[in-house]
């Protein structure tokens, strides 16, 4: 199985094994934590990671543009890893090639340094915001630790939050001391956290509460995991 339809907030989201979400109703693609340039950043600092790994991200991205033909594409933060770099320019070329798609960046902690650069006219093609209301969803970078967070104002409280930041992973256990862990989508009552899209990014284990939905991703396949198996 390479994709899985999840009904949430009275609509249906398609969770793709390429670690993105497609929302058919509005033809929107959600992508979290791309970390563009992480690999180049390491290489520039004298750490010889295979350069080919950098282009992989973009190849997958293009395949998504072709398969889903989205009208809108939302990056849920941490688009950049560190500074602008070769990977960024390759990425921009790719996005401009699909110029019928509207691109929006919900900025994350890693993007902070680049806000100034993104304001320049050459980057008009990319909208920028801290959070984005897309009824019934609220797009953000960081998840809420407490669902009664006071920083939320008015309407936002009633929206379902889609976000990234955590690079969630899940651990499964079984008889005979069996264990598996993999990146995952983590949906709880009011929010859904996407796995990190970028290659070469780590992750941290999620804490699952009763009623949560967890959908694992491994070896280009998607695995909905029930609360008990």
């Amino acid at each position, binding site marked *: 199985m390479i994709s899985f339809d999840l009904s949430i907030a009275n609509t249906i989201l398609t969770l793709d094994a390429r670690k993105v979400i497609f929302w058919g109703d509005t033809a929107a693609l959600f992508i979290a934590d791309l970390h563009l340039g992480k690999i180049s950043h390491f290489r520039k600092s004298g750490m010889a*990671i295979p350069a080919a790994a950098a282009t992989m991200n973009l190849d997958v991205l293009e395949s998504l543009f072709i398969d889903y033909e989205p009208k809108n594409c939302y990056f849920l933060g941490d688009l950049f890893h560190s500074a602008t770099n070769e990977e960024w320019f390759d990425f921009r070329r790719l996005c401009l090639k699909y110029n019928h798609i509207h691109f929006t960046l919900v900025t994350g902690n890693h993007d902070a340094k680049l806000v100034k650069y993104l304001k320049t006219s050459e980057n008009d093609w990319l909208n920028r915001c801290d959070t984005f209301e897309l009824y019934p969803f609220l797009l953000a970078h960081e998840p809420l630790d407490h669902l009664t967070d006071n920083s939320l104002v008015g309407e936002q409280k009633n929206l379902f939050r889609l976000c990234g930041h955590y690079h969630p992973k899940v*651990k499964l256990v079984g008889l005979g*001391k069996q264990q598996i862990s993999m990146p995952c989508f983590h949906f709880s009552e009011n929010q859904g956290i996407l796995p990190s899209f970028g290659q070469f990014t780590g992750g941290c284990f999620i804490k699952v509460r009763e009623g949560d939905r967890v959908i694992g991703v491994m070896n280009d396949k998607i695995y909905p995991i029930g609360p008990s198996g």
Partner: protein
Amino acid sequence: MTFNNWSKPALNWFEKNHWRPQVFQLEAWEAIYNGYSGLLSAPTGTGKTFALLVPFLLKGLSESNKNSAEGLQLIWITPIRALAKEIELSAQRAVEGLGLNWQIGIRTGDMAQNIRKQQLKNFPQILITTPESLHLLITNPSYPQIFKHLKGIVVDEWHEMIGSKRGVQMQLALALLSSLVPKSQVWGISATIGNIDEAADVLLGTYTGAEKRKWIKSDIEKKIDVHTIIPEKVASYPWAGHLGIKMADKLIPLILASNSTLIFTNTRAQCEIWYRHLLEIIPSLAGQLAMHHGSMSREIRDWVENALYQGTLKAVVCTSSLDLGVDFRPVDTIIQIGSPKGIARFLQRAGRSGHQPGGLSQIYFLPTHALEMLEAAALREAVAENKVEARIPPIRCFDVLVQYLITRALGVGFKPDLLFEEIKQTYAFASLSAEEWQVQDGIWLVTDRLVAKRHRLQMGTIVSDPVLQVKYLKGGFLGTIEEWFISSLKPGEVFWFAGQALSLVRIKDMTVQVRKSKEQKGKIPSWQGGRLPLSSELGTFLRNQIYALHNHENSHVPEIRALKPLINIQTLTSAIPRENEFLIESFVSKEGYHLTCYPFEGRLVHEGLGALIAWRLSKIKPQSFSIAMNDYGIEWLSDTPIDVDVNLLRQLFSVEQLFSHSRESIHSTALASRRFRDIATISGLLFKGYPGNHKKDRHLQASGTLFFQVFQDYEPDNLLLIQAYEEALLFQMEEHRMFDALKRIENQQILLKVCNKATPFAFPIMVDRLREKLSSEKLEDRIKKMTLLLEK
């Protein structure tokens, strides 16, 4: 000048002090007089320092009129900083005794930056340093000047380095020094090791100037008395575990009757536990009992070492941190808690007592679980036969090479073709091929200052887990603790560290702030890694003890007599294998289906065999295994029955196609990935951050597993990745030992016992936490059988 005339000043000096040069000392002097390089094997405390130091001083005397020489003459390498001071004292005595006007300098990581800078301006004639600090010196552009007048390099305690990547680092430095100053002589000092013949070849490579070589051996032997502390009731002694604290009472008379005692434990956690417990049961020791382990601060350790030296301590609970180092003359008793896992290590520790000439070394072994009694009997026999382990020198360590290339590119830069020829002179890289050495022509020089800074911070071949500093709120540095342990504590919680009950206040900037606590209970930290596997030599002695149980050859041995009740349970519930039998047990528990076997080859070999057999089983039908091992045996655990019979087991344990199967099984486990973590750190792929400033460079940090994955996917023929697999095979699985073990098993009969529950042999394996995984089932099928852990 004849040798007799040349050595006259030294002989006179010896005579004045009423010393008589020993035969091996004279041999070494003459060999160095004649321009030889070589290896000296002699136990500690027998005058090896003067054997190699004096002749280089004599060279200085004969070649200079002013009694002073220009520039650095002799480099003395010591693997442990703590020894530098002692060597300095000896050197000082010899320099004065011979009337030379030479300076002696120490250069180690402990020293302040300004002293190191001063040294560069006016270099001493004798430099005492570590391999790491020597490499750091090579990153200084003035190094060709510094080494210009060098006469000799002495590598002390070579046996401590030969089997590790530090040894490779040493070889690279020796190749450089020999090519800079072809006339310089290279000497090593080594204790007895199983492959002492090889030790000289590894040290001396094929460097120019080291063609004339000699091996000098002292015939001094130390007498050792081995005693085992035997529990009165073995039946109530734990089958597994690692405490043995039940028998602590038995140590009281030993400690009280001795002048000074060293109590060796195998881990830092045990060290903390025993220190606390001994204080509790012998309150009169307060103030005279100390502890010593590698995570305690240098200052506290120095204080303990000094007090030991002065004879003001009655006992010290320690770890391998006191295996080496200065001689503590007041120490007359050694206690070893838990199996030392190797004969050489046991002898080394025993030798820490009885330093008086002709003195007897006393060592008491306290088993920490019942089966260790067998190890005690095996150890005693091994000591009697004086059989010590070989230390296999690693070769083709590309991680060390990559690090070294940057080191060389930092100093004055390098030309690839010249460096290639130089490196090929080392034992480790003799087989390096031109295809592997694809470095573009030109001069390689690091120009980026940040790259240089990061490199200098990260140099070295010893990789440790991320640690936090433990400090009192008011200041005062106690030592370091691993991140994973401290993150399990909440503020206010109490833990024991360096023998103190500490209450956690907060974690701030990679520092754990604590205050003293009056509470008696607290968590004991543990540190990962560092568990040493049983050596194959000791394994052989151990197997012989087991086989001997049948013909009662060893029934008179006290350890074996004490173990009788346990042996009876094993016989009743399963069997004790004979020399021509290989025991395999199977049983079912609520955890799943278990299969166990007992090759007694040590943890590492068992890790390899465990993966190999699981891989072979998984080819027959899709199945998932969790594999555990200890030094005695292996356990395979599965959620579905493991269907085997004697015929199938024969095939599973066959030596046929071992080479290709072990390679494939490595690919199905995390063995290579784990090796890669160290490789990535040494080669500079993994950056651990600047000291005290961890957050700032998080952008350059990633985990070793991630690197492994990326290389696997995008550069499968990368030499560092290949090295990870080779290391897993050679050093982790120890392929040649796996081969020997399977060969032995092929000649044995398979004894398959279906048991009701875990036997005394199986039990200690099952409780081990470290597990390897291997599966041939479809992911979908595995996930179906699994559950998600819910937060409560």
